[in-house]
């Protein structure tokens, strides 16, 4: 991260900064002196960050040697009874024999009655079978699934909608997600116990199921949007500006790299961050425009031709090539509900005055002179 966009928190958490504060040396002094003379406005932030690092303390609860020894004694005692694996091959037959030896009287005394003999034979077979099964479970099973019990692996779920395809699905908590073309969403399978955290690239619309104990968090680019039960749209395609629009309810947006980084949005408000800048812009939006994509609708309002190219390429999963340069400042408006690419291009070709050739997943546009 570039230090020009640092907040107090970022300084505190920067290992180099901590090192300078706690164990300064000549090099780090030179570096930070230089940084401060170049960026004098950081003086206040750095002073506060320093104060936090210097005073960082925790309540410490050290256990004494007796307690350590007592715990070891308990572990040793219990470990004694877990000597297990070496004996296991001999246990299996032994157990079956012992089981049989436990019933000799019955077997011999009922000798005369054939029916009973049959019954005990059956019983013996059942006992041996179950005995073996139990032995196998007790002594073999732990070997096969050992580490899983100590450390469950974190499995990441990843949904990806390739260009040209939109995808809707439900999350494990019942929240609904609609993923726009060329976007991906990933999260820990089943979510963690304390939060519903996911990372988004591209655009998605969320209808969040209420769960006050597990905040719903979406990380997109630099921003983390937190919601409890609400619906919102995030647009964060790589290299394009980041838009977060709130349709209903309330969300909080955290952008560590920006000034005034925690923002509460009201219904109908959105925030926009331009790529590479740290300033935020709050805007009122038109719900129809923002959510048009979820209704299979493409809306252009005085949209520059280069942006239209990106939208169509992603929407239909095609590659568009301009055969000659369009007029600069060419902006077009139009609205297309569930239309084929050909119809959209036909519609646009009148106002933008171009001819087009559609071949497989390639589109060639030639603008009229």
């Amino acid at each position: 991260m570039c230090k020009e966009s640092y907040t107090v928190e970022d300084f505190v958490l920067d290992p180099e900064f901590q090192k300078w504060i706690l164990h300064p040396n000549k090099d780090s002094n030179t570096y930070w002196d230089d940084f401060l003379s170049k960026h004098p406005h950081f003086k206040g932030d750095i002073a506060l960050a320093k104060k936090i690092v210097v005073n960082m303390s925790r309540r410490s609860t050290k256990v004494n040697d007796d307690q350590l020894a007592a715990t070891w004694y308990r572990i040793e005692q219990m470990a004694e009874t877990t000597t297990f694996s070496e004996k296991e091959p001999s246990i299996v037959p032994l157990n079956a024999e012992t089981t049989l030896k436990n019933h000799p009287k019955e077997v011999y005394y009922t000798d005369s009655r054939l029916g009973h003999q049959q019954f005990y034979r059956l019983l013996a077979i059942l006992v041996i079978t179950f005995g073996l099964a139990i032995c196998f479970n007790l002594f073999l099973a732990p070997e096969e699934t050992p580490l899983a019990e100590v450390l469950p692996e974190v499995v990441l779920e990843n949904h990806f909608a390739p260009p040209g395809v939109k995808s809707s699905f439900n999350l494990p908590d019942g929240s609904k997600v609609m993923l726009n073309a060329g976007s991906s969403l990933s999260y820990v399978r089943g979510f963690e116990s304390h939060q519903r955290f996911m990372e988004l690239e591209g655009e998605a619309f969320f209808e969040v199921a209420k769960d006050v104990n597990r905040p719903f968090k979406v990380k997109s680019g630099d921003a983390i949007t937190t919601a409890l039960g609400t619906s919102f749209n995030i647009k964060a395609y790589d290299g394009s500006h980041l838009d977060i629009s709130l349709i209903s309810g309330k969300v909080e947006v955290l952008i560590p790299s920006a000034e005034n980084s925690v923002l509460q949005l009201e219904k109908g408000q959105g925030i926009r961050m331009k790529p590479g800048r740290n300033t935020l812009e709050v805007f009122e939006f038109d719900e129809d425009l923002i959510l048009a994509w979820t209704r299979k609708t493409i809306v252009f309002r005085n949209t520059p031709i280069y942006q239209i190219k990106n939208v169509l390429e992603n929407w239909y999963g095609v590659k568009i090539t301009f055969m000659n340069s369009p007029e600069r400042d060419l902006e077009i408006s139009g609205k297309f509900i569930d239309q084929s690419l050909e119809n959209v291009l036909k519609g646009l070709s009148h106002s933008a005055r171009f001819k087009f050739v559609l071949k497989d997943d390639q589109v060639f546009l030639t603008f009229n002179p």
Partner: protein
Amino acid sequence: MKIIRDAQVLKSPEHYWNLLVRGDKIGLEGIYCQYAPELFAFGMSLVPDYDFVQDCIQEVFLDIWKYHRNLHGVSNIKIYLFKSTSHKIFKEIKRAKKTDWAELNEENLSLVSIEPVESELVKLQAKEYLQVRVANVLEKLPKRQKQVLNHLFFDHFTYEEVAKIMGINLRSTYTLAWKAITTVKKHLSGDR
């Protein structure tokens, strides 16, 4: 504990780990002597209840004893033990459905002291009342945030290692730490 009392010089953790993998109890004891103090400090920082933490740590060591044959793949012993302990503690918290340990009993309270971050210079600039204040803020943070700060500032783990221990990605680790520092900042920025 024979090892600590008999020979003052402990052998390397790897030496004991290899013994443990082969099923030698000396290995288990060596690993315990090396890491138990840190694991207790870590556990008690999350849950200030000696009996609770003792049970968790005991379980962790019995588990590695039980499954010693599968431990040869472990590349970083300390990370592995912290991760196992962290996992065990959160699992037990969930099972006990106990969320608040704010009430310290007398036995536990006697063990509590304020531990400042390590530095050669701290004495010159730190103020004791501020350290107490920060320690109190840390105490009230959500457990995961507290864990991140503890690992970063007191256990000297890197962000990568903390992410591994807590089973989350780097971004989430940083975000948790960031939020924790925001809270600390609020309590310190008043009297700049």
